[in-house]
């Protein structure tokens, strides 16, 4: 059955057919026909953000917390260019996003028309794929294909640019159907390679699972299979920033996050292992430290759906291309059918070694005096919210690393953070997207005051839609991570890294019609956090913390996993040598 309708109506119809319930967007001249259709329906809720960057981050938060793609609708020119940071963020972290942009009418393209930009040109390197649709008849097919591309294989952001005359013209609507395009990424791994990994698992003396965001992207089933694999083999497991929650933080095989600000035991185990099983992680430079000295004695297996991730940074011995869930299913089947063997004696010895590293207690800190330590603030936040139906977002910087270290994640899709791109300003709009998807959950954005200010206009959105997002700002009046690097690397010359002229956050909250809470005394902290949690509405929590706290442990740039520096008694002036200084 074919149906005739305008391009604008097709867009809304295609979104409905794709099961979209929420769109984040901002209107403008080149999308007015679409907004007219949005006005005349009730199936899709439109969330009016205050800046297009916020729309994309909100859609990312929605996508990460639900596993469904996020949808954004913005206008041409500045609407599209403002979306670029969010698109790049989603590309780096493999988040499925569909961005629909308006474009000047086809007959004006190339004439430097008002609010014209070469949107597909600008976004080509920051999307997984993009389309400029010049015929209304093709529009619905392209939108359906956009959902297919965004969500298949390694997920990512896509963009569809739609000129205004295409929105007005009438054409034939193509209903949603299974994709027949040539783009059908392989999800099953090669059984010979999986068997090779099983053989390695059976023999390993010092094994470790190194997991990443690929486990989360593969769906909750993949996390379940991973848990079964970890429990039945008894091997230790660590995860990247992006993979937190794929294995529960309360599990006894959990070593904590690894990497530059990862836990001592996790990094030492990575350095000393004899079998590294990378599941859906990509050997990012925050993980490996200096590549030449990365886990020198281990056999490395790598499960990844993207062949370009395999052997890109680290040469691996057992490459397995496929979806994490599918590969783990086959892996467990083969391992069980061969008699569930491991070298348990050697692994027990390995655990004894790991326990020694654990005993170092690399996250210990002392809360004393009248100033709140940021670690203490997060420890209390964890204690008071861990039993909640809780979702955590973060901005980027020290607070982000402390949140990864001190908060525990029991399930996937509960942790939204900008990992690859490191986008300050990500967390607040992301928390709005999460709260839209989970109206009854406790959604907290752990922020630094500088990051938070980058997208603070979204307070308007939070208040308008009565979204009770909690903005937990660790306020040190500094760009803390920049300051830390200047201390370690640039002779304590703190160039432009303090926050002058900060707003009064309580008054700011009130100006938006929200609640503000100030807390600067450790004795008041629990009560203040409870007040935040009990308030039914958005809250800005201004948690004034120690100004010069550094984030440890840390692998200094240019160093290996076994050369971490710890929190106490660090000589900050010699931690990084001149070869390490050029690295970021």
């Amino acid at each position, binding site marked *: 059955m074919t149906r005739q309708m305008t391009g604008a109506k097709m867009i809304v119809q295609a979104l409905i057919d794709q099961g979209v319930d929420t769109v984040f967007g901002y209107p403008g001249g080149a999308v007015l026909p679409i907004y007219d259709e949005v006005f005349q329906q009730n199936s899709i809720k439109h969330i009016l953000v205050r800046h297009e960057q916020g729309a994309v981050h909100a859609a990312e938060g929605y996508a990460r917390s639900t596993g469904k793609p996020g949808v954004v609708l913005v206008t041409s020119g500045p609407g599209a260019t403002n979306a670029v940071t969010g698109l790049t963020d989603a590309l780096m972290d493999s988040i499925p996003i569909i961005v629909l942009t308006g474009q000047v009418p086809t007959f004006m393209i190339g004439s430097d028309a008002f609010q014209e930009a070469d949107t*597909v*040109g600008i976004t*080509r*390197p920051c999307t*997984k*794929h993009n389309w*400029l649709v010049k015929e209304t008849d093709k529009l619905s097919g392209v939108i359906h294909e956009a959902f297919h*591309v965004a969500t298949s*294989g*390694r997920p990512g952001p896509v963009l569809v640019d739609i000129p205004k005359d295409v929105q007005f013209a009438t054409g034939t609507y193509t209903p949603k159907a299974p994709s027949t395009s*040539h*783009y*059908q*990424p*392989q999800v099953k791994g*090669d059984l*010979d*390679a999986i068997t*090779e990994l099983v053989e390695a698992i059976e023999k390993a003396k010092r094994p470790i699972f190194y997991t990443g965001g690929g486990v989360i992207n593969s769906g909750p089933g993949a996390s379940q299979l991973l848990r079964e694999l970890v429990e039945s083999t008894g091997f230790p497991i660590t995860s990247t920033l992006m993979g937190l929650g794929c294995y529960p933080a309360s599990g006894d095989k959990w070593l904590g996050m690894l990497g530059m600000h990862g836990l001592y035991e996790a990094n030492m185990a990575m350095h000393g292992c004899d079998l590294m099983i990378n599941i859906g992680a990509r050997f990012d430079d925050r993980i490996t430290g200096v590549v030449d000295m990365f886990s020198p004695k281990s056999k490395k297996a790598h499960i990844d759906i*993207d*062949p*370009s991730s*395999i*052997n*890109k940074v680290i*040469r691996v011995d057992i*490459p*397995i*291309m496929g979806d994490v869930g599918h590969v783990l299913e086959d892996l467990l089947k083969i391992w069980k059918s061969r008699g569930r063997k491991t070298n348990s004696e050697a692994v027990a010895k390995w655990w004894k070694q790991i326990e020694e590293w654990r005993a170092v207690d690399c996250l210990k800190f002392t809360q004393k005096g009248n100033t709140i330590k940021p670690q203490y603030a997060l420890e209390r936040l964890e204690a008071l919210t861990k039993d909640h139906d809780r979702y955590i977002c973060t901005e980027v910087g020290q607070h982000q690393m402390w949140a990864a270290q001190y908060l525990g994640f029991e399930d996937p899709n509960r942790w939204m953070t900008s990992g690859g791109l490191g986008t300050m300003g990500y967390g607040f709009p992301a928390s709005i997207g999460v709260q839209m998807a989970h109206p009854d959950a406790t959604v907290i954005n752990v922020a630094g005051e500088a990051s938070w200010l980058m997208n603070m206009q979204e307070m308007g959105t939070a208040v308008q839609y009565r979204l009770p997002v909690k903005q937990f700002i660790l306020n040190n009046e500094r760009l803390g991570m920049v300051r830390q690097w200047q201390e370690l690397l640039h002779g304590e010359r703190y160039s432009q890294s303090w926050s002058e002229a900060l707003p009064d956050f309580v008054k700011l909250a009130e100006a938006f019609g929200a609640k503000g809470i100030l807390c600067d005394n450790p004795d008041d902290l629990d009560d203040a956090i409870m007040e935040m949690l009990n308030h039914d509405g958005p809250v800005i929590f201004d948690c004034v913390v120690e100004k010069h706290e550094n984030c440890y442990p840390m692998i200094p740039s240019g160093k290996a996993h076994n050369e971490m520096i710890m929190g106490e008694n660090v000589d900050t002036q010699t931690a990084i040598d001149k070869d390490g200084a050029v690295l970021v």
Partner: protein
Amino acid sequence: MSALKIKKGANSHSAYNLRPNFSDVVERHTLAVLVENEPGVLARVIGLFSGRGYNIDSLTVAEVDHTGHLSRITIVTSGTPQVIEQIKAQLGRIVSVHDVHDLTVEGASVERELAMFKVAGKGDHRVEALRLADIFRANVVDSTLESFVFEITGAPEKIDAFADLMRPLGLTEVARTGVAALSRGD
């Protein structure tokens, strides 16, 4: 995208070799990339090379299947084996790319390039240019009393050699198409 069943040590049935032997020697590879002929597809491929810092020594592109709207891009690139493997994997994940073939490793192949040379001169130089063109089986496609335009087809090395010989005889302009390549046999 081609099927990617990865066998131990195998690399013949896939553009991706996930078990390569890496060395530091820079190699020259000719890649044949079959792409959907849609607007911007060439920009995607070129943007990948510039964005990730890979080399393009030569690039040719034209639609080869008018009903299926497929274009064939032939790219000559150079890099260490690890870089070459990355290039192929990165090309393979572009949504508009149907297939990537590394003609340099997938058995024997033939490479051809077309070039045109404008040679201006008088007297002996003019005679010598014509004589050498005959040896190289280059055709004269335009002539004035003081210049020739030669057309020559061959492997890039042959064209380089012809250019070297023409230079002292009054070579004024060169146009080259870049390499087109096909694997031998069926």
